[in-house]
């Protein structure tokens, strides 16, 4: 009786735990099934072209290169903004802030994390983009930079929370030893605690990057969505996610455009996959040391 129940519970738990594996596999199969016909007609080389012109009276072009550069540009700039704010914020909260300050800081960080991305996007369109335009003297505020700032804003709470955990899990004895040896507080923070917490901080940044690269709505609203190859953050860019979101509703099932969008999805998946592998590698290397 008891063993029967144990077994049943075991199966249920195993089933729940395996669901994610099953779902990942199903997603891969589904993406592959929808995208594959494109590889024969019009051919894989079509994806490598330098232009994305999905709706045209003359010739439709499904080159995803501008979309990839768009995503890379926005993600890269967002990461550069996110790292100092996220990491220094975490250091302050974990090491310097008083309890009373934290009672104010932490709830607001949590609120920031909970704001829906459409709302952030709307804020970006109405408030941030004119500011960016005026500060940099641009023709329009709809730029990759505007998108990157918004994305950084959305990722910072993740980076702060995870880095803070990492910093706080540095053993107390490290701090005490450092202070006892005559190091002051700043020296202790930057020479002892941060190096010790580095794997966790890097994991936090990777998580933030993961959030940034997959975010859709906010970038769709503020980056201007011009599909051109550029590495200038003051230019308008079109990201992979925004392309899928904006165009998937329109396409006829089974058309080349439809299949091309699935390829965009596959590339996005591959990018996030390698990002995860990279994060794991970095983490392991630091833990070995």
């Amino acid at each position, binding site marked *: 009786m008891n063993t029967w129940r144990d077994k049943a519970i075991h199966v249920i738990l195993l089933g729940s735990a395996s669901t994610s594996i099953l779902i990942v596999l199903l997603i891969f199969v589904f993406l592959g099934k929808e995208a594959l016909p494109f590889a024969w007609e019009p051919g894989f080389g079509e994806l490598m072209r330098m232009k994305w012109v999905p709706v045209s009276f003359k010739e439709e072009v499904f080159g995803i290169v501008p979309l990839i550069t768009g995503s890379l540009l926005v993600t890269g700039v967002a990461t550069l903004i996110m790292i100092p704010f996220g990491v220094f914020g975490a250091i302050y909260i974990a090491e310097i802030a008083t309890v009373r300050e934290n009672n104010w800081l932490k709830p607001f960080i949590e609120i920031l994390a909970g704001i829906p991305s459409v709302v952030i996007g709307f804020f970006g369109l109405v408030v941030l983009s004119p500011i960016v335009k005026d500060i940099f003297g641009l023709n329009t*505020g709809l730029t990759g930079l505007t998108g990157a700032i918004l994305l950084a804003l959305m990722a910072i709470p993740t980076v702060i929370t995870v880095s803070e955990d990492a910093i706080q899990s540095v053993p107390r004895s490290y701090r005490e030893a450092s202070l006892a040896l005559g190091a002051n507080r700043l020296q202790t923070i930057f020479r002892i605690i941060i190096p010790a917490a580095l794997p966790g901080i890097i994991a936090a940044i990777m998580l933030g990057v993961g959030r940034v690269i997959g975010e859709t709505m906010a970038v769709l609203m503020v980056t201007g969505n*011009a599909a051109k190859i550029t590495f200038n953050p003051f230019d308008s860019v079109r990201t992979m996610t925004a392309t899928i979101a904006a165009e998937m*509703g*329109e396409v006829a099932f089974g058309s080349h455009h439809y299949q091309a969008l699935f390829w965009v999805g596959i590339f996005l998946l591959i990018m996030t996959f390698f990002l995860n592998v990279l994060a794991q590698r970095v983490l392991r290397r630091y833990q070995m040391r």
Partner: protein
Amino acid sequence: MIKKILSLVLIVAMAGFVLVSCGSKEDASKPEVSYITIKGSDTMVHLASAWAEAYMKNHPNTDISVTGGGSGTGIAALLNGTTDICIASRSIKQKEIKLAEEKGLHPNEIVTSRDGLAVVVNPGNPIESLSIEQIGKIYTGAYTNWKDVGGPDHEIVVLSRESSSGTYVFFQERVMSKKDYSQDAMLMPSTSAIIQSVSQDAWAIGYVGLGYSAQAGDKVKMLTVKNTEDSPAVTPSVATVQNATYGIARPLFFYTNGEPKGAIRDFVAFALSDAGQEIVLEAGYVPVN
């Protein structure tokens, strides 16, 4: 994770509840209740909803649901058999007709009303009037500076709707002589985003439906449009769209599969009747007659 699972369970439970309650409702009411689904152009959603509401008031046994998503979405839904009536702000493409015929469907076109597209610029822009050819050259990227069309020496910020929008395709066909959009053209997710950007960016140009630009008031400036270089400049308005002197106007369509029958035919007849055309006028569009 637990939260996600919980919410999933909740969603499934709710879906089940909705299904069950729908089922019981069907049993209870009279058998002659007919359902009509309408899907497609975002431009026409308000209009179609107004028709549906007025129609259902007089026909309590008919349920009509209206959803947007873009003309392409509507046509895709018609081809997939998931909507009875497709509302579209562009005519169906040859390619889509071919797809339909492969599936054994026969799209049937009905002109319900007309809509004018206003070309808008920032109120600070000294340009008052452009020819259709000039506007086309701005959007294809042949002209990139306002001085090319007799304005001050400033780069033009080109704003367009997303490629899933019927307006995008119509504009391409009517104004850009079917050429491709410039790579620098920014694709905005909504009409309000275009109005927002044009009101903020001094050197931007955009196109929006006549009803929207009238609502926007003095946030943006409507250009008068010359059909050819030598013809007179025409202000976009209900009167000029109806008497066909304003060049950038388009019909708004219903598409059904074959000749409409039963409740669908009845609804289409209502939309085209005097009462239906009165609603067209109230919604800010232009009646067919």
